[in-house]
Structures are given as C-alpha cells and as structure tokens.
C-alpha cells in the first residue's frame, strides 16, 4: 500500500503524544497575570517551568477526540474476552447514575442529608443477598480481586478468632488466575489442585490434600474452562469436615444468577463482580466493585463500614462497637463504589428477577451456540454443554504453522476483539470465548462465519496471512517481547 506524505491513511489519523504537539506560547485560555509569589518554601520551590505543552483549544479537542476514536470497546464491536464478561451496559444505568441527587453528593455529608444514598446501598446489598441466599455482605471491595482479598482477610480473622494457625489455601488449576495472588497477598501459602480430564477439580486429589493446616479452598464456579463444578456439594462438605472455609470466586456468577442459590452450594464467602454480572462498565481501569457475600460463620468478621437501618433511618457503622462483630478491618476509604452500586441496582430493578434469570440463561445459550457451531472447525477442549463461555485449544492449528496468538491477531483484521488467549493453562494454546447474552444471533453468526473462514485458511496452509496480521490496524504487530524486556516508561523530549 502506498504511503501518504502525512502518514495518515484516509481518516485513520496519526496522532502524536500531546507533548509532541507543544507549540510554546499557545494557550486555550487567557489567564490573568499571577500575583507575585511570596516564598514560604525556604527555597524549595520549583525554579523552572513544569513542562506543560502549549496548546490551543481546538488542538486539545481534536487530540482527545482522535484518541477516543482509536479506542475499541464493547460499544464499538463484539468483545468476547473469556471470563471478563464484556457485555452491553444498558444506558438506563448511566442515566440514573448521573441524577444530580446521586452524582453530586459527598461521602463526608452528614448521613441525615444522604438517607436516599444509604438506602440505595442497603437495597443493592439486599438484592445481592437475596439472589445468592447468603445472610451477610461486605459492600466496600472495589474490584474482583479486592473482593477475594476481603474474603480471605475475613477467613483469616475467623481463624485467628478461634486460635487456629492454618496457613494453606488450596487453589484448583481451573480457578481464576487472581486467586493464588490474593491468597499469597493475605499471607497464605498456595497449594494447587490438578484438574481432571473433564476439566473439573480432581476430587480425589483435593481430598488427599486436605488436613488440619488447610485454611480454605478457593473454587471458581463455573470454572475458567466454562464448566460447572458438578461435584461442588461434595467439595464443600470435604473442606468443611477438614475445618477449612469454602471460598467461591464469583467472577462467573453471571452464568448462574437466578438459577443457583450460592448458599445452597455450601459456600462460606463469594465475591460478586458488579462490573461483570450486573452490567456496570469495566475495562480501562474501572472502577469496578466486588461486593462479597458471607455465610453466618464469617459474617461477624466482615470489614467496615456497613449500612444499617432502624426506626430512625439509615446510618453507617464505621467502628466496631456493636455486639459480636469482630471486623477484619477496613478495605478502602468511604463506603464502596457508590456510582457502581447505582448502576447495578438500576440493572437489577429494570431487569427484575425474571429478567436476571433470563440473562444468565441466554449467556449460557450463546456460549453453547458458539461451542456447537465452531466444534467442527476449531477443537473444543471439553465435551459440552458448557456454561457461559466456550473453551477451545490449538489442536485445530496443529501443523499449520499458525499459533493461537497469530489466530487472535487475524481476528482483529476481521473486526473482532480477540478472545482470551493462553488461559486457562490447563489446555494447550487456549482460546476462551465468552459471547454474553447481549450479542444477538446475527452478531454471533457473523463471528462464527469469520472464525470458520480463518480456520479454513489456516488449514489450507495460508500461514503468511496469520503471521502478517493485523494489517488493517493503525499499528501492526507490536514487539511485546521488547516492550516487556526494555520498557520505555516515560516520554522524554
């Protein structure tokens, strides 16, 4: 393709860094001359300019508009990133979150002036407890892994309370990748449990690892193979008999909402990703929210603060003074991700119980549609039916010279965000796809047709196409190795 003099291709514009746009002296706003500075810093004040670029207002507007046009997200295309649940976020959630009475309040306001906000937190907590069947909840965790941290800190507090020094946490290979990190961050040692040929926890291996030093088991259900851990009741019983607690990673709760009550599975603690299951925005740094439901055994150890209500209205409990509570501590400033609670509650209320149940059912249906339609062109890792995500491995690429990475890059040229690659580790060259309930049948069919076409081209020996991909993007394949080995973390003039 011929290069243009500007480096632009049509309206796909090259955009420099904002510091490279610097035109000294230009300014979008006329500011009055500052008053003379009285030195109160004892000579420590900055002597030179701070290096902000000189920019006109239209330059700034164009810069950020162009960057926003380069952004790819769930609002622009199908984003089947496995285990991340990139689904449509209904705009009614955004409308309600922007209501001035909810958007313009401050956490330091007297509680008498924010009774509605406290009621909203309490109501969100109520519905999450109702859906899971769990008696207690900690609303403050600000992300999924933060919820894991909350659950493990709660378990640690409960163990310390009974004078128990258990330190080992069992984590199956089919669990989420953050689980071992969370356990280690809380001071536990991590002991992996292998998966069976069915992609589920090896129950015999699990039982063999149980003992008086096991603090907890961290199970992801449905697991990262997109499969329901169908021996979960026996697993729960085994860990409880050994005196440990049962942590369930609820990142995949979106597959079972309204179908399974978590409390019925024998779970002691589970975090819920509001930014996955309850359709609040995520990706690009959040904010997320990971409210964590707790069993009666762990409830006294929940972190503060908590919203309670009595005949005088709603109030915040910020200090452990009340009877029986032995909170594990405080996890973040203020009272949780309030703006995310608004969106999650808006979603729950607008969907209703029947709608939430339908959403989880449709998510599972979409994934099974992918699994069935792609089974002859790609290689499914495990026999279906699956839950909300379909897992394939790279056996269908064997001998073609094409890797999972190459395949994913070619998907970008087809106009799709790639699925999750190389995770879970229990299969070779994993391709983990989560279509979610918000992709239509038409959208899924286009995705399937593209993947079938790519698989066919790989089979027919067209490896060059894959090695070159992506070719239709503003940048071609990046040197990820060099980026990791010699990262350039700061722009310099």
């Amino acid at each position: 393709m011929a290069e243009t003099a500007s480096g632009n291709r049509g309206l796909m514009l090259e955009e420099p860094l904002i510091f490279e746009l610097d035109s000294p002296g230009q300014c979008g706003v006329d500011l009055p001359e500052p008053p003379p500075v009285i030195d109160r810093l004892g000579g420590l004040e900055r002597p030179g300019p701070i290096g902000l670029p000189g920019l006109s207002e239209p330059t700034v507007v164009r810069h950020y508009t162009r960057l926003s046009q380069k952004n790819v997200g769930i609002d622009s295309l199908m984003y089947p990133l496995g285990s991340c649940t990139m689904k449509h976020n209904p705009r009614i959630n955004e409308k309600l979150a922007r209501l001035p009475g909810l958007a313009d309040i401050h956490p330091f306001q007297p509680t008498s002036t924010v009774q509605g906000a406290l009621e909203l937190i309490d109501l969100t907590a109520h519905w999450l407890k109702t859906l899971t069947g769990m008696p207690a909840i900690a609303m403050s965790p600000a992300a999924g892994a933060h919820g894991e941290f909350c659950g493990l800190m709660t378990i640690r507090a409960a163990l310390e309370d009974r004078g128990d020094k258990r330190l080992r946490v069992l984590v199956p290979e089919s669990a989420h990748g953050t689980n071992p990190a969370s356990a280690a961050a809380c001071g536990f040692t991590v002991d992996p449990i292998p998966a069976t040929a069915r992609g589920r926890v090896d129950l015999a291996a699990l039982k063999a690892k149980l003992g008086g030093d096991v603090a907890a088991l961290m199970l992801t259900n449905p697991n990262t193979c997109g499969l329901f851990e169908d021996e979960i009741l026996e697993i729960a019983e085994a860990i409880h008999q050994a005196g440990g607690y049962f942590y369930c990673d609820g990142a995949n709760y979106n597959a079972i909402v309204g179908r399974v009550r978590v409390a019925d599975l024998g779970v002691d603690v589970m975090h819920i990703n509001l930014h996955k299951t309850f359709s609040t925005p995520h990706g690009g740094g959040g904010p997320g929210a990971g409210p964590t439901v707790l069993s009666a055994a762990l409830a006294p150890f929940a972190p503060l603060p908590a919203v309670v209500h009595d005949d005088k209205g709603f109030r915040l409990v910020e200090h452990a003074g009340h009877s029986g509570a032995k909170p594990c501590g405080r996890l973040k400033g203020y009272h949780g991700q309030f703006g995310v609670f608004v969106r999650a509650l808006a979603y729950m209320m607008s969907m209703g119980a029947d709608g939430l149940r339908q959403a989880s059912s449709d998510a599972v249906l979409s994934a099974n549609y992918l699994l069935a339609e792609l089974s002859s062109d790609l290689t499914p890792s495990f026999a279906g039916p699956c839950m909300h995500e379909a897992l394939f491995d790279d056996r269908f690429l064997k001998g073609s010279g094409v890797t999972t990475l190459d395949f994913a890059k070619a998907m970008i040229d087809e106009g799709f965000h790639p699925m999750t690659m190389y995770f879970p580790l229990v299969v070779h060259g994993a391709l983990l796809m989560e279509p979610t309930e918000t992709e239509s049948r038409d959208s899924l069919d286009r995705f399937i047709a593209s993947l079938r076409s790519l698989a066919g081209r790989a089979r027919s020996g067209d490896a060059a196409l894959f090695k070159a991909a992506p070719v239709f993007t503003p940048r071609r394949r990046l040197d990820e190795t060099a980026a990791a080995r010699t990262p350039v973390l700061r722009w310099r003039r």
Partner: protein
Amino acid sequence: MSNTYFTTEHEWIDVDGDIGTVGITDHAQHALGDVVFVELPALGKRVAKATEAAVVESVKAASEVFSPVSGDIVAVNDAIVEQPGLVNEAAETTAWFFKLRLADPAELTGLMDRAAYDEFVKGLE
C-alpha cells in the same frame, strides 16, 4: 554416566559432588515463549524439594520454578535476570538459574534421566 536429572515440572539439575546446578529445560523455554522476567532465590535460602524456588515470566505466562531437590542456595545466575532472553537461547547450559548444596542426595532417585525425560515430553505432544 550422566549426572543430569529432570523433573516432570521441566527443571533439570546437574550434580557435581554435593552441588547441584538447576535450570529449566529447553522444552520448558520453548513452551513459555520469549522470557521477559526472571526472579531468583536469595543466597543462603533453604529450599525444599518440589517447592517454588524461582519465577520465570514470558509474554504468555508466569510460572514457578520448583527446586528438584532440597538444599541451600549457594549461587544464582544474575546474568539471566539482566538478560532474560538468555533462557531462550541456552536454557540447558549457560542460562542456569541457581546452584544449591544438596541436603539429601537420595532425593535424586525418582527424578528422570535424559532418556526418560525425552520420552516424557514426547508423551505430552
């Protein structure tokens, strides 16, 4: 008689007297892809057989390196921390991870020799 032994977790140990040199196998570096980060144990640290002694990270995944046997760390290979790419170039020779003083040479029995390891890898294909 070869003094090199292999684990099912794809580490090798080359034994000379009571000192063992440990690294990851060529198969392991190939499966990992481009290695971008290596973390080595502290000198003098006591490691137990089959427990985590080092960490290796590639563009695809982060993995633990398990010590094939128990012992005290007597040397680490700082060159692979500086240049992780050496692990891809010379996994079974100059890109060793650490040396340890064997606590119990009897732990070597049960590890695989080269032929058995090659057979093991073939079974994974």
